[in-house]
């Protein structure tokens, strides 16, 4: 068709084939269906793989739709909705931990704070809802990036700013950290954004198991860390709160 970009049209055709009856197709099959040279199809598949829309099955070498595509448009949960659902549990977390609580979502490579509960000591505090914080230097950010690797690549590519001597500024270091976060199910920022401050966070998942937000606490290193590691009781409170909200969103059926 005149006025359109041919390679995008061809990519769309490939994606449609992969979401049809045959969920897994090889280069030869795709090329045959589209009546295109294998080399052309292979080139398109390579780019589609880089952006996460397509994945190659290691055993068979065939291609299928990628996770990023399946989650597209559905990893967004309205921040106001998330706050409403999480209200009781975030208050509870603040009460149990004695620290301030924040809930964040991923927004253009940063963390948007959609909810903030004061530290329950009646001290003077300001509401930080609507603020943006860096994703690579906060626990909430790490939780969100670990679950959305494509966003993590973008954040790394844009350059990782240094805030304290402990801020992660290298791509490899960030990759390793995110892999660890995904593995253990929670994240910490140990004085990586502000010297003397620590934050802990865990993922909030919706009914498809997609991470739609992160909930965490933050406070002084003296209270949140013990012998150089985050206090395990605080970690468990944060994880329980995250699970409770996820359960309400339908992520955990029991």
């Amino acid at each position, binding site marked *: 068709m005149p006025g359109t970009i041919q390679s995008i049209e061809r990519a769309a055709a490939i994606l449609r084939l992969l979401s049809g009856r045959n969920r897994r197709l090889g280069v030869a099959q795709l090329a045959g269906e589209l009546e295109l040279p294998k080399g052309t199809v292979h080139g398109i598949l390579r780019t589609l793989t880089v952006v996460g829309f397509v994945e190659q099955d290691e055993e068979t070498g065939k291609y299928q739709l990628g996770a990023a595509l399946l989650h597209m448009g559905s990893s967004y949960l309205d921040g*106001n*909705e998330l*706050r*409403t659902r999480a209200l009781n549990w975030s208050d509870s977390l603040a*009460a*149990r931990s004695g620290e301030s609580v924040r809930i964040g979502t991923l927004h253009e490579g940063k963390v948007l704070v959609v909810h903030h*509960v*004061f530290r*329950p000591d009646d001290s003077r*505090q300001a509401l930080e809802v609507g603020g943006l914080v860096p994703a690579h230097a906060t626990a909430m950010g790490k939780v969100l990036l670990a679950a959305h690797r494509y966003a993590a690549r973008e954040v790394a590519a844009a350059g990782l700013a240094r805030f304290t001597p402990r801020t992660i500024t290298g791509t490899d270091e960030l990759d390793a950290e995110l892999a660890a976060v995904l593995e253990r199910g929670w994240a910490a920022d140990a004085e990586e954004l502000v010297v003397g401050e620590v934050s802990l966070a865990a993922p909030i998942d919706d009914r498809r198991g997609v991470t739609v937000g992160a909930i965490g606490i933050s406070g002084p290193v003296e209270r949140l860390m013990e012998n150089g590691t985050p206090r395990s009781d605080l970690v468990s409170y944060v994880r329980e709160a995250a699970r409770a909200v996820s359960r309400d969103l339908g992520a955990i059926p029991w």
Partner: protein
Amino acid sequence: MSERYIASVDQGTASSRCLVFDRRARVVAVSQVEHEHIFPRPGLVEHDPEEIWRNVEHVVADALASAQLPVSDIVALGITNQRETTVLWDAKTGEPVHNALNWADTRTDHLVRELGDGLGPDRFRERCGLPLATYFSGPKIRWLLDNVAGLAERAEAGDVLFGTMDSWLIWRLCGRHITDVTNAGRTMLMNLETLDWDDVLLDAIGVPRAMLPEIRPSMEVYGEAGGALAGVPVAAALGDQHAAMFGQTCFEPGDAKCTYGTGSFLLMNTGDQPVASGNGLLTTVGYKIGDEPATYALEGSIAVTGALVQWFRDKIGLIGSASEIETLARTVDNNGGCYVVPAFSGLFAPHWRSDARGVIAGLTGYITKGHLARAVLEATAWQTREVVEAMNSDAGVELTSLKVDGGMTANNLLMQSLADVLDVPVVRPIVAETPSLGAAYAAGLAVGFWSGPDELRAQWHKAAEWLPAMEQAVRDKGYRKWRKAVARTVDWVDEDDD
């Protein structure tokens, strides 16, 4: 000793909830189910009492199961409920004889005007603290007796029982026909001084004493529950706004709170004497602890706040969920000049005009759904301003900050609008579910789980605060326009309307 807990049932206007609290007033389990609002005709609102009872049974069992709590760890149950909603049931079979008439139902419109009998809506105000309005239970009972065949005779004989939702639940839970003073105080049949049913009121409104529950204090062990909470003492009952006052630890005269839910209710503790309002507020019982003298309160009742958002969601369909109202409202910077006055059941405090109905004013071709959403949120803020001004006049002292609670406190834009429009800080405590907490506190005090009000006050902590950020000129103009919009709601209902 292992942990012990207090369970709380909140039978609200929109849903029934069970919350379980630990000794430090932290929520350890929640379960919630909405029930149906039946609208037989415009202005009429009913519920199915059996559906509500089943839902309460369900949320109790579900809350315990979700937190894996054995019944033996629950030390007491407190009940709080939507007030005024009227249930009549057969004394022997327990079967409701009609759908429950919700507090917002306006079918008693004509009856209420007739009862004024030339003396006007304040005819009974000195005795019961309330103006004649469709809001209250007494006239609803009379309407049912007049309109359901054979009911009047059965009621005289004591074969039909009346209750607000607390009575209905306690009847099903432990087989006693009782109510607490705060709920009784919303019927227009109770004397504010004696705290007993008043024969003059019963006679004038036409309700036989035989059908009425026994009036008890707000906290004492009424009996033992059955079902999922078998053996647990039922130790408190309070109307939801009174429970919220308790949960917000408003124990001293001058302490005030406003709960934002389907409707919104500003209550101020006025101590052990009832204070008459010269500005359209209600005089009501705050709570009664066992044998101690009752604590009274002034109340500004706003009928439609969250209900307006729900209407916008369910009937207008411009948002998919209630929280989306904030998202939509934030797509614009202001209301574009339009104002929504949701006088769905007439105007409540401070105007009390049952002839009023809702209005959207200031429409031009410029207005978008974003502006409408903004106006929907601001309606709650402006209505609050009106009752705060009335409260300041009656109390003779100005509110310096507003303690808020209830589901709508999740809406940050609304909370900021409140602070802007009232020009005082707005503060939310760490537990937003204050009616449930208040009922739990009351039940806990009754069984000695907590020692007294001081221990409860020590558990109140600030969770969020919004500071005023609006210029005086903008605020003044907004209020002027709001009052113009309100003036356009009155004188609407005609004789030949339903």
